[in-house]
């Protein structure tokens, strides 16, 4: 098994979940990752440095997700509901599941550019430099988008009802 094959096999689960957080739909996420992996395999020759495999793979996945968001916007909007939440759990607003549901709700309302950097940073645990490589932007842009995304999430209606001390914190700027 080649290095790429191994990386794809190891990273499949996280890639699907990353795509799920970006697209908001499991079927779309699986579809996107399948397409991304096929494309990654097709263009495997363009990958020269082994050290950049992870951001490169995320770049393929993110580009495929962008492509899906661009071409399938009506369907995505119809199905972007972050499935899998149990009604019984949702009835308890203090549970972790309910909190994650609120965060996902706020995440869904973010623009795609901000949503992608949030997911790559706080779920995929990529550094700002690797995120910059993955989305083809400068690290400064990534930092700016992360900042804006966190600010918007804190102001989202579903998170403002929570105990603000737990979810948010004051950041002194300038």
């Amino acid at each position, binding site marked *: 098994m080649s290095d790429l*094959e191994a990386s*794809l*096999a190891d990273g*499949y*689960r996280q890639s*699907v*979940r*990353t795509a*799920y*957080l970006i697209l908001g739909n*499991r079927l779309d*996420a*699986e579809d996107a990752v*399948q*397409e991304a*992996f*096929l*494309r*990654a*395999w*097709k*263009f495997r020759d*363009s990958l020269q440095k082994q050290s950049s495999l992870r951001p490169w793979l995320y*770049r*393929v996945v993110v*580009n495929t997700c962008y492509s899906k968001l661009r071409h399938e916007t009506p369907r995505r909007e119809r199905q972007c509901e*972050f499935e*899998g*939440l149990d009604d019984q759990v949702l009835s308890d607003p203090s549970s*972790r*599941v309910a*909190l*994650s*549901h*609120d*965060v*996902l709700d706020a*995440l869904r309302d973010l623009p795609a550019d901000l949503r992608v950097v*949030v*997911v790559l940073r*706080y*779920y995929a645990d990529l550094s700002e430099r690797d995120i910059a490589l993955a989305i*083809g932007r400068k690290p400064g842009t990534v930092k700016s988008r992360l*900042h804006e995304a*966190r*600010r918007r*999430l*804190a*102001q989202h209606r579903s*998170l403002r009802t929570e105990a*603000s001390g*737990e*979810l*948010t*914190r*004051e*950041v*002194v*700027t300038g």
Partner: protein
Amino acid sequence: MTMIDEEVLTRALHDAADRVDVSEDAVKHILAEAQVDPATRSRRVREYFAERPRGRTVLVAAACLVVVGAIALPLLRSEVVGRPRPTPASTAAPAPPLGTVGLSVSPNGVAPNGTAISTPASGKSLHATSSTAPAIATSQKIESTGTVNLTVHRNGVAGAITKLTELATSDGGFVDSTEARVGTQTLSSFANATVVLQVPQRRFTSLVGQVQLLGRATRIITSSSNVTGQYVNLQARISELEVSLAQYERIMARATTIGGILAVQAQIDALQSQIEQYQGALKVLGNETTFGALTVNIAQPHLHVVPLRRRTGFDKAWHDSVSGFVAGFEWLVRLAGPTLFAVLLLAALWLLGRYSRRALLRRRM
């Protein structure tokens, strides 16, 4: 500024994502599909490998072309307009039919562009609306003359004379005479000229049209007359005189007395003189009907001459500074056009390159 806590966000995202069940077998199928022969791939997988349509790239390239074209075309057009006019033969309006005045005349005798047109009272000049003028047979003899008064731009008299000469000589004609006057009167300068052109009859009307293009025509007079009868009459008289001359020559051969010889010789001399006179008239008429004569009066507007006044001191310094400022500003304006064009062109190329690079990178992914 209030921001969401990073730990809370990380934990919430992991909680949400971990609830998604992912089949580990799926990746094996994907890799298996990726490694099989392209011809045997399933239809859905083939779609991923197929080249994406390049409509967007073509659209961007077309947009760039439109932008560059929209910028370049007006510039090119302004360049062409700024150049000297092409030869009048290529830009001349369709020549009016022979025997018509070259401009239409309104009921009050003024042309639509305000040019006054005088038409001779004699029956020689034809009406402006004679669009149904009969076709001229080759045997007919038409005599055409005309006068055009032209006003040319400043310092354009010499150029107009040169162009008139070219017009006349381009098709078998010639310049009959040229008279130019250049000088200065009190507070004004003047330059005018009179050029008489002789051109073949068939080119006369087109020449009138071409001459008008050299400046602003302020007066146009053309007249044509059919002198075929006069021509034939002269030819007939010459023939009769030649018959008489032949008879007198036969009489002369039979004359025996000195008185008779002198009397016949006197008649022969008179006849020969008449024949030569008629032949001369016929030749002149032939020349007039072979060539049409067009007199062109060229003038330029009177130019006011500003007397030079020597500037000194503050006046001179102020004048020099204003002149320098205006010259610098003119230079900036002249430079702005090409610079703006170059900047827009570079911007379009940069955008195209940026998009191409991204498209290439996206395709490699």
